[in-house]
């Protein structure tokens, strides 16, 4: 038989508050080092190309997830492309309303089979369309992070 006793009053229900207290430090990895240093030092985007699958990974990877070969061929990718999909976000990470809705887009970069997910600025949401050409805006002070790209804007 199941429980012989249950709570009778709501105020008897106790919830114990707590957390998983930890911080995480992630190395960017073999491919990440090269990609993010190039981005930081020269404001340029580079990708890895798999000759066997003829697939260009952006962001670059150390290996091809399709054929598992190690990727050693790096190719230059221009900092512009077309919007594959975009969405107007209304909630922040705490699921609270954002002060200002922001646009997040998946930009397919020319010369690559992938692209970058980033914010879109300097454009009104109802002017944005799938296929719209956009370009990356690089920060002045760069430190080797995907945020070295401030945002994408229409070009």
């Amino acid at each position, binding site marked *: 038989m199941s429980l012989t006793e249950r*709570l009778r009053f709501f105020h008897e229900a106790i919830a114990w508050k707590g957390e998983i207290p930890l911080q*995480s*430090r*992630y190395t960017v990895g073999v491919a990440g080092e090269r990609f993010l240093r190039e981005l930081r030092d020269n404001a340029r985007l580079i990708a890895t190309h798999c000759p066997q699958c003829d697939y260009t990974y952006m962001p670059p990877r150390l290996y091809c997830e399709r054929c598992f070969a190690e990727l050693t061929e790096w190719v230059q990718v221009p900092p512009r492309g077309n919007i594959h999909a975009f969405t107007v976000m209304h909630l922040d990470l705490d699921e609270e309303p954002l002060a200002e809705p922001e646009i997040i887009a998946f930009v397919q970069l020319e010369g690559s089979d992938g692209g970058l997910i980033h914010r879109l600025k300097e454009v009104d949401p109802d002017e944005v369309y799938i296929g719209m050409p956009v370009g990356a805006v690089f920060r002045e002070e760069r430190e080797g*992070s995907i945020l070295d790209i401030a945002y994408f804007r229409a070009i």
Partner: protein
Amino acid sequence: MTEHITEYPGTPLKERDFTEGKVLYNWWVPKADYAWDAGVAIGKFLAGLKEGKILGITCPQCGRILVPPRMVCSDCFVPTDHWVEVRHTGTVRMFSITYVTWDMQRLEKPLIPAVIELDGITPGMGFMHLLDEVDRDDVHIGLRVEAVWRPAEERTAAITDILYFRPLKEETS
């Protein structure tokens, strides 16, 4: 290893490689906060602690008085019943003397965690808590101890309503 594999992948780093900028890295602190429903067994146990009581519950089939309490007996898979108030004295069954905190900071005054088997119930029943008011050399398996409670008005229905266990003084035997 298969002899013809000579080189194994993996690039070891030193801590200073991070501080000296030899490698790039990202930082993230997850907001992993929870409010776990204590439910019937632990809810009642915590409420008991607030009143300065240690509660156990009985398995009708094997007769064990279970501390910490639980609504099902692990061995018999039978729902437990009959709450029992348990004495605040017990015996140290296992202990350690630790000089590091949970995240490996050095401690000058050691923490002494111990598993305390409480008196008057099934052998082995009890829970982990801390020992204090005892010198490290006097701690041993079998040490008789008693609970030291937080003042009633400061209790919050938590395991820390018991401050610690200390050696039993008035045991005459």
